[in-house]
């Protein structure tokens, strides 16, 4: 029961994963306000601790190569429980898409377009996204390579320009905060940028990949994403020092500080470009996944018709989520990591265990055949 006929290559898959994580990089304030100058260490620890999680996703992908997350759930938990969990996942995807759309609106307002209404920014983004979503997975992921490469180039330019203002002593002292802060930091980093990779369980059936290549591309994409976040965090810490946690967008502030011989200055547009580009990609992917999941749940063959309606829902939902940036940031630090944990860690883990116990992957093809018959 494949709704979308498109297929994507392994490289596209890899860059999609990278782009997806990169999109969170510029908003890395979530952890830098918690663990300050040690954020980069927390990031590295978090990345290492997330490797088993990535391995879990990879295992699920390999175990069920032709079924996406919702189908796996039905398969493992049976039609009723599976569908209930599926509905919860749909809510999760929609919320993620809305949150990122809100971010896009808010941060575009902060960086380049102060007076443009949020609604217009959200609407423009969703209209373009809807176009991609209607055309299927191929178009959704087509530009991932381009976006990831542009991000790398622009980010490198930014880092080189700001290099002379980095003070190494800002990284000291290390391990100066209470232990709980590090745990909180690692929890945030593993649920907000990394754990969100669970959405790729929705699209892996469209990737032409062998068993070994799945691991390779998933980890490579993950690695690229981590490097990007590191590349954003390190200059932030090095330049801003003890002011790191008072800014809404530290990266924007440091790019504004670029001043090489009066001529090379005011580089914040780099930030705006990367931000809009990456968030657009992330929103499109989440939007696509939400639409796909909804269509699958209700057994709609022509998921295209759902695209615009879902877009409207995402916009409207986004506006009602948080009354202000402050509350958004606060909940991202305190509530969201706990709320996301079941979706990103617990349910996939449970699914994996039950599937192993019931020895499902072996019979999955037969069962699929039975269903079709």
């Amino acid at each position, binding site marked *: 029961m494949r709704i979308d006929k498109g297929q994507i290559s392994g490289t596209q898959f890899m860059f999609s994963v990278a782009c997806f994580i990169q999109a969170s990089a510029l908003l890395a304030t979530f952890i830098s306000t918690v663990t300050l100058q040690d954020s980069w260490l927390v990031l590295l620890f978090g990345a290492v601790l997330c490797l088993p999680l990535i391995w879990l996703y990879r295992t699920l992908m390999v175990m069920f190569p032709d079924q996406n997350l919702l189908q796996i759930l039905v398969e493992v938990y049976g039609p009723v429980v599976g569908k209930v969990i599926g509905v919860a996942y749909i809510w999760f995807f929609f919320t993620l898409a809305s949150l990122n759309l809100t971010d896009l609106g808010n941060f575009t307002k*902060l960086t*380049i*377009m*102060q*007076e*443009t*209404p949020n609604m*217009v920014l959200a*609407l*423009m983004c969703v209209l373009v996204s809807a176009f991609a979503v209607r055309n299927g997975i191929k178009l959704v992921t087509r530009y991932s390579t381009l976006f990831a490469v542009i991000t790398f180039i622009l980010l490198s330019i930014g880092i080189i320009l700001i290099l002379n203002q980095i003070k190494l*002593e800002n990284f*000291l*002292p290390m*391990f*100066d905060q209470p232990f709980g802060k590090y745990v909180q930091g690692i929890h945030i980093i593993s649920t907000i940028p990394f754990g969100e990779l669970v959405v790729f369980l929705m699209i892996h059936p469209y990737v032409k990949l062998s068993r070994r290549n799945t691991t390779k591309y998933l980890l490579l994409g993950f690695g690229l994403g981590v490097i990007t976040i590191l590349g954003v965090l390190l200059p932030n810490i090095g*330049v*801003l*020092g*003890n*002011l790191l946690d*008072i800014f809404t967008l530290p990266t924007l*502030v440091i790019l*504004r*500080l670029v*001043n090489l011989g*009066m001529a090379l*200055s005011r580089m914040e547009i780099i930030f705006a470009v990367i931000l809009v580009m990456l968030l657009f990609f992330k929103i499109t992917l989440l939007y696509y996944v939400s639409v796909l999941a909804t269509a699958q749940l209700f057994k709609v063959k022509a998921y295209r018709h759902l695209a615009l309606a879902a877009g409207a829902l995402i916009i409207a939902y986004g506006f009602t989520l948080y009354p202000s940036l402050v509350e958004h940031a606060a909940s991202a630090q305190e509530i969201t990591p706990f709320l996301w944990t079941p979706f990103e860690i617990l349910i996939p883990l449970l699914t994996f265990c039950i599937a192993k116990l019931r020895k499902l992957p072996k019979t999955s093809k037969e069962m699929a055949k039975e269903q079709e018959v």
Partner: protein
Amino acid sequence: MNRRIRLVASVILLPVLIMLLSSCWDNHELDTLFIVTGVALDKADDPEQLDITLQIGKTKSNTSGSGESNSQQDSTILLKTTAYTMMEGLMEFNRDSSRTLLLQHNQVLLLGSALAEQGIKDRIDLFLRDHEARMEVLVMIADGRADKVLSAKLDQEKISGMFLAREMQDLYAVSPYYKIRMLDFASRLRDGITSPVAPIVAMEETDNKQEIKFNGFAVFKDGKMIGRLNNDEVMGYIWAMGNVKKCGVVADCDMGRAVFQIINLDTERDVTLRPDGVVRVTLSVNATLNIGELRGFKGKTSQDLMRYLIDLAQSEIRRKITDTFETTQTLNADIYGIGTSVHRKYPKEWKEFKNRWNELFPDTELDVQVQVHLPTTGQIIKSMEMEETRRED
């Protein structure tokens, strides 16, 4: 049928997109803007209020060349008001003026010394918060009233805000510690351990000529200006911080006067805790100098003189650094960030020290070790006076 619908849809959609994407909400045309080049805040009669002065660089072109005399007066506009907060002042300016204020090109934030003594911690919120605010704005203290500096009519530069920015750019080449940006200032202000400093400028009027003079550094503590360093003491501070390029060292002694130019001066700082709880700071200064000018030194041979000059320069650098350090100890303001160094090296002990740093800093011991190299003597090897003594022999 389908195609026709698509055509109609795109014909309708494209103009809509053009209208929306051109971001009409955020258009700022040059002829509707007032480009702010300097902001001055002064103490008002009511201590709750602020005297706000904005300097606006005119966007008018001077190519017409009709008048010489009016070009200076016309190049800036000063807007003044008194308000409780900066934002209220800005709102008032915007209401009463024909154009919108653009703060993005603001070069300098000048604080009057009276206001600085009163406290500025609660006055600079807008300069961090506003989306047009940039962290690279220079922070300076004006001797007396700040609006006088902004209104100065200078020969060198038409706009005094630009003058200050360029002057600081030059001083930045000497040492990065001269240039105090909003980021540096706010960072120290928030830190609470390292005392913020900011350059002091003063407008001086002689023979109908107005000039802006650099008058040392203001030293802050708890958001209030508590003292100042004069120009010599600023040297001592800059050298103690290191990373100095092209700066002068003047040494005076019985035999004559020597002026050296610093090619490179680097300082390494090391803090140690003595068992009795006293912090000991070791500054190892490593300087490469150039002889700039010599006066006197009769009867010295070149080799003797070189050794003598090295000693002279070393003791001069040590003296200035120690003098400044003593001044800051009397002010009880740790402008060097020694507390932060202790924090970084002894994180555990620091937890206890943190609250007592005010008592500890005045007792801190300083040890300055200066190492001077004099690789070149300039275009001449001997001076005129030395040559004369030779002939007499």
